């Protein structure tokens, strides 16, 4: 009987605000509000959401590229929320990142070798021979021929650049890899190769992933758990299958169904109307209520405008919706009618 495993990453009550200077004077915009998220060791968690959902900001907070405005982030039990300087630098090897822009995330003046070696040069003291051996091993692991080691990023394809970024990210043997739209800029066939690589690496290195993507197919392929964000909040979290097959939040259902199906014909079974609200002018109460089909069906109950729903697993509220318990049943009615 093993001891309960501690989450690798524990986020509680995270808030991130930005100052915005508009023509109406300055104000504060909340990009992320009240986020609770756990990532277990070796687990792949997906973060989905559209513009303004705050998913990228959340990832940047977990990565500590920015400092949270409120809330806590724990890495393997250690509170890293306000770490700075040397203490923060020492923790860096544990969380690494792969960005969306394959070419832009690599210094255009550096060779592939130097790019992959950079983290090791910063954190470890390896001899030249050891460094070379390790870089070559990493090139092999991500499926790049060794002769590419002297090339510059602009001489590589998008897929090759992304492999370099991945090689660099795993060079310090991190425990968590944050992937921000890692394949969005790649062709479908190249994306498939990179996704396959990510699956393999995860198994071989027991990596945890925090995967951000607007492509639900990619999320479904790679992740075991998914958190859905809307206007800065996590509106639903759960196992991948449930999110895709039996979501409790009306937005989640609509989001999944909005994606055209490669394997079937027909219009989307749910079509949301309206625009995505801006974080500078969030709707009162539940941010989703102006576009919510469930609210319409239920006759526009007052609560949707007056109180902000939150997830409360223990109280049986798996999604941030006042009427989450009715979503499944009401959904059938919605698509029939």
């Amino acid at each position: 009987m093993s001891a309960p495993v501690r989450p690798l990453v524990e986020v509680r009550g995270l808030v991130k605000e930005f100052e915005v200077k508009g023509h109406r004077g300055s104000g504060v915009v909340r990009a992320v509000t009240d986020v609770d998220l756990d990532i277990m060791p070796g687990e792949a968690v997906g973060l989905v959401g559209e513009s303004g959902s705050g998913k990228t900001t959340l990832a940047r907070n977990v990565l500590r590229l920015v400092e949270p405005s409120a809330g806590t982030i724990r890495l393997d039990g250690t509170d890293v929320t306000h770490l700075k300087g040397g203490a923060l630098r020492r923790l860096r090897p544990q969380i690494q990142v792969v960005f969306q822009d394959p070419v832009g995330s690599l210094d255009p003046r550096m060779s592939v070798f130097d790019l992959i070696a950079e983290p090791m040069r910063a954190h470890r003291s390896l001899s030249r021979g050891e460094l070379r051996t390790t870089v070559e091993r990493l090139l092999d692991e991500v499926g790049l021929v060794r002769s590419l080691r002297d090339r510059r990023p602009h001489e590589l394809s998008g897929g090759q650049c992304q492999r370099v970024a991945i090689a660099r990210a795993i060079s310090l043997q991190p425990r968590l890899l944050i992937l921000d739209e890692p394949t969005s800029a790649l062709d479908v066939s190249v994306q498939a190769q990179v996704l396959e690589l990510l699956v393999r690496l995860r198994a071989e290195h027991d990596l945890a992933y925090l995967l951000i993507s607007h492509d639900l197919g990619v999320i479904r392929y790679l992740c075991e758990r998914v958190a859905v964000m809307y206007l800065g909040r996590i509106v639903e979290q759960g196992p991948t299958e449930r999110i895709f097959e039996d979501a409790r939040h009306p937005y989640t259902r609509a989001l999944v169904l909005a994606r055209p199906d490669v394997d079937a014909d027909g219009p989307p079974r749910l079509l949301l109307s309206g625009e995505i609200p801006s974080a500078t002018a969030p709707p009162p109460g539940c941010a989703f209520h102006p576009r919510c089909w469930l609210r319409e069906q239920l006759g526009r109950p007052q609560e949707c405008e007056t109180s902000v729903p939150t997830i409360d697993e223990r109280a049986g509220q798996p999604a941030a919706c006042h009427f989450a318990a009715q979503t499944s049943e009401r959904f059938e009615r919605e698509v029939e009618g």
Partner: protein
Amino acid sequence: MVTPPGPVSEPVLRIRDLRVRFRTPGRRVTAVSGIDLDVGQGEILGVVGETGCGKTVTGLSVLGLLPDTAEVEAAELRLLGRDLTSLTDDQWRGLRGTDVAMVFQNPTGSFNPVFTIGAQMRDVLAAHDGLKGRAAAARIHEVLTACAMPDPDRVIGSYPHQLSGGMLQRAMLALALLSRPKLLVADEPTTALDVTIAAQILELILGLQREMGFSVLFITHDLGVVRRVCSRVAVLYAGRVVETAGTADLFRAPQHPYTRGLIAAVPRTHRAAGALATIRGSVPPDPGAIVGCAFRERCELAIERCATERPELRSLVGGQRVACHVATDEAGATVAER
């Protein structure tokens, strides 16, 4: 999927053996090396492929929007029966907007930031139809409403930066449809949009097409979008068409190995994740220089003939056309049937 149109009539767009090369210092790059396409009346033809397949270049050639470094040749490049290969700038200006119009991936870049939406639409109407004043305002309002634009009057007076991505895309559609073109070329119109907004725009395009009857050349890399919107599909690889078929046939029984590979490589949203098939290798850098089939090096089924002889598009029994030695034999039977 949309049902294909009725009896065959004169195609709106007819392309035979289109070749486009770009002159760069020191060398010529072949972008398109022999594309055959037809877009029928009232049809939405999907042109799908990955980077370097030539889909955007093909779309731009239909509007004469290729840069000066482009050399365009075609056995036939006809829009509504009219030859496009040797038009002057003035002649192009006469065509654009009235006969053919284009919407692009990035709506922000398509509008002039210092003019209001309404002003830009008025300019277009005045230039193409000679409409001014109240007639113009009425037409603008009509088209914006048809594009499901919330609060058209406010949008008319707004500047591009004041509108969201989805609204700008609607505005771009409206701008394109102002003068009732017969052909709309849409280059990745929803790729830059959020998922729920993209879904709205796709339904909008379908609705507008049903209502107004124009044809669409729909360029995209997204197979899900193709299935939803297009009635027929042309699959491009390395500057050539490798397969064309009705949408239902294409997805039910794809014939070309590349098409099969592409469909199998898409991670599924609506089914539990199975294994993802990959196509090994990558797109060849200079397809114009390749002898034989451009897909050969990545193909599991390649035979000797593929290295020496470039496959031409041939019709199969069911109406599909495939450019593959292995997929078709002399009798037109498919691999599956053998």
